[in-house]
């Protein structure tokens, strides 16, 4: 019988929740890395026992953790062995050094600071880890300040795909309220050369040559809060989701607005429809029904909680515009939690499971595509990320 493994990153550690295919009884393992901010954990589609985790701390910086047994044990790649005295030191798995100009040795570019002045790139943390669809040792990291890194040796060493920052619009990028972070990485299963990323607050970008060159894909996004609402750069994209069964169709939760693209991001249309508010962070797509999408509407960009104190997932079965609230099993009074951008995921069992975590420490699961919900856990630290693995 199939199993499900839910990887949860929180403000104070990581937790691993496992269940059989019924998804009504759960084992909880953790906290792993207690006391550390665990921004994101994700498993390799090519080897489900290979997990990667981003462990961060304001005091001690960035750590990359790796597991080869589904999260039972962990290691810091490159740091696991004590080197022989005098031997070459192993590569540093937590070294994210931005590329510099090969001609001058100076930084490639600067970005816009909150006050409009130019500012140097400074590495802060890894927001998102996206393992390759085919190679367990290849993994991408989206970092703050926004850049994309890749490791091809299982996380031991990282190299920037600097065509993204270097393509010319870097000086126009600026931090969102959460920092200037590259938080979304979507790999196209039908085209290994194609990848989508999103940055707050620069927008969405696409590569069609494996990460060498990039272009902005923000046509149709409209952001009244920036000087030019239709600008090519500067939109605060919160998250992008794509069904692996239909690459090229993208759904986006923007700062405000839920958007849809049917041409791999070349243009976008708003599909917020009858949502009570189109602000939010998380968005995902049903595993088997590519027109069924999920969002969690949040009241506003200053009140990061659900409208009316009711925690409602909204589902559209029409690819947007027509939305229905899903409430059965979710608190419908006095609920003032947030659901962050990487804190929603789906499994791929026949009856698609949907999962999300809250800043109040609950992780909710629906084994029936959102019709009914139940908490797996209620009292974790604030949840930063939720990912799901469907295991044979």
């Amino acid at each position: 019988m199939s199993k499900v493994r839910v990887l949860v990153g929180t403000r104070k550690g990581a937790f691993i929740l496992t269940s059989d295919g019924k998804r009504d009884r759960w084992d909880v393992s953790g906290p792993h890395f207690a006391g550390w901010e665990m921004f994101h954990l994700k498993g390799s589609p090519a080897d489900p026992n290979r997990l990667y985790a981003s462990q961060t701390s304001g005091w001690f910086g960035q750590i990359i953790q790796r597991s080869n047994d589904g999260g039972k044990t962990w290691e810091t790649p490159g740091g696991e062995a004590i080197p022989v005295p005098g031997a070459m030191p192993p590569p540093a798995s937590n070294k994210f050094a931005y590329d510099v100009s090969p001609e001058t040795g100076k930084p490639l570019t600067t970005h816009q600071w909150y006050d409009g002045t130019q500012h140097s790139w400074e590495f802060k943390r890894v927001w998102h880890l996206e393992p390759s669809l085919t190679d367990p040792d290849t993994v991408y990291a989206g970092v703050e300040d926004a850049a994309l890194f890749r490791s091809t040796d299982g996380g031991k060493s990282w190299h920037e795909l600097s065509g993204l920052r270097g393509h010319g619009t870097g000086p126009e990028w600026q931090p969102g309220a959460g920092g200037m972070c590259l938080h979304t990485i979507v790999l196209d299963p039908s085209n290994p050369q194609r990848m989508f990323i999103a940055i707050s607050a620069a927008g969405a970008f696409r590569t069609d040559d494996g990460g060498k060159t990039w272009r902005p894909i923000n046509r149709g996004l409209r952001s009244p809060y920036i000087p030019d609402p239709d600008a090519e750069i500067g939109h605060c994209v919160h998250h992008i989701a794509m069904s692996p069964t239909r690459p090229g169709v993208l759904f986006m939760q923007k700062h405000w607005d839920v958007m849809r693209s049917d041409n791999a991001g070349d243009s976008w249309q708003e599909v917020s429809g009858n949502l009570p508010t189109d602000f939010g962070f998380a968005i995902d797509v049903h595993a088997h029904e590519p027109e069924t999408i999920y969002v969690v509407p949040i009241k506003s960009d200053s009140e990061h909680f659900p409208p009316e104190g009711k925690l409602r997932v909204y589902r559209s079965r029409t690819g947007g515009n027509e939305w229905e609230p899903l409430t059965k099993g979710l608190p419908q009074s006095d609920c003032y939690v947030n659901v962050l951008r990487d804190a929603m995921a789906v499994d791929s069992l026949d009856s698609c499971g949907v999962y999300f975590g809250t800043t109040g420490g609950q992780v909710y699961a629906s084994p029936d595509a959102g019709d009914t919900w139940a908490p797996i856990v209620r009292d974790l630290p604030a949840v930063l990320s939720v990912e799901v693995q469907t295991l044979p």
Partner: protein
Amino acid sequence: MIRVVLPAHLRTLARVPGDVELEVEGPLTQRSVLDALEARFPMLRGTIRDHVTLERRPFLRFFACEEDLSHESPDAPLPAAVASGREPFFIIGAIAGG
């Protein structure tokens, strides 16, 4: 043999239960201590000082013999009591917030 006291989170990361004992070659300075520490525990690289600049991370402090050595030159000699192992070299997480 000198002794180094790590913050709890770095002890966990390095998988050591308590103080670390290190053999340091040459003059005993902050730099030589940290070089030896990182060579023995590679997972600590980048957590105490920046990978590229090798500067102390902002929220960490260095103490020995009840003196704050955080702003001393990384190449200044450490006290003789640290060199003899009588006193440890402390790496301490600075308190920020309440």
